[in-house]
């Protein structure tokens, strides 16, 4: 379950759990957790026992949760253990300020280039746009000064996030991945495959990154 990749500069150690936001990471307000959500809770509990983190961080934002009528499953776990909890995702306005482009914006750019493809638009989002948000997450984590961080995030970020951590010299381990993920019913995994096959990762000069 645990792969250790490391480099050795100063900074936090980040332990990663990749999830499906809707099926695992959050639950609908007023409903009991599903079996998948209970599995996610047990993965987090075993990570806490194993890692003893001083920060439980997750890719989400209170405005997104309330907009979807959902609630964090990580927050009550953090409270029950007396561990600091942090939502690291940027709100929409901040994402725009950071220059992040949504898949709809990328689709329009592709249409203008005569390349209308939904899967290519998602691939650009995953390979080129994700690091913009991920840098923001690491900035938010850095502000806390935490040394051992458990970070829960959308599983599709795994390739770019680990690449970013490595390039920043931040040691990390993958505690769990694809928690609650149903690849067959998530077309974005097709886009992930497309991005890998087209060697899109690591390109910092793509048209989708220009203003």
């Amino acid at each position: 379950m645990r792969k250790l990749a490391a480099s050795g500069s100063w900074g936090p150690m980040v332990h990663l759990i990749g999830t499906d936001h809707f099926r695992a990471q959050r639950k609908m307000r007023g409903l009991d957790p599903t079996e998948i959500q209970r599995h996610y809770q047990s993965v987090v509990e075993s990570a806490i026992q194993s890692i003893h983190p001083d920060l439980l961080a997750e890719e989400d934002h209170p405005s997104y949760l309330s907009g979807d009528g959902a609630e964090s499953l990580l927050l009550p776990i953090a409270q029950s253990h007396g561990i600091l909890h942090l939502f690291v995702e940027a709100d929409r306005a901040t994402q725009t300020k950071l220059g992040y482009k949504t898949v709809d914006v990328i689709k329009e750019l592709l249409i203008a280039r005569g390349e209308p493809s939904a899967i290519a638009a998602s691939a650009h989002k995953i390979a080129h746009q994700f690091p913009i948000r991920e840098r923001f997450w690491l900035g938010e984590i850095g502000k806390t000064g935490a040394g051992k961080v458990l970070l829960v995030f959308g599983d599709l970020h795994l390739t770019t996030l680990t690449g970013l951590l490595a390039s920043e010299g931040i040691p990390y381990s993958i505690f769990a991945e694809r928690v609650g993920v149903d690849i067959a019913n998530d077309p974005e995994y097709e886009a992930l495959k497309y991005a890998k096959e087209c060697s899109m990762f690591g390109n910092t000069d793509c048209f989708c990154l220009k203003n």
Partner: protein
Amino acid sequence: MEFKGNLPSTKPSKTDWEWVKKQIAEDAPIPYDPNDPNDGPYDPNDDEAVDRFLTEANRVRPSTKKNEPPISKAS
């Protein structure tokens, strides 16, 4: 025990049923004033206008996303 059923109202109806029956028998046009903003967006006597309105009404009222089941999302 107090009765909570659904009995016919004892109040006299204000509808002129004789007039209604006569209108139906004569297939009389439904009163409609296009200049009256309270009189509806189409002429109910004009079949084409009725069809056009219903088509447009369906088009501008798509089902809301709230009713859709949650999707997988790992991004």
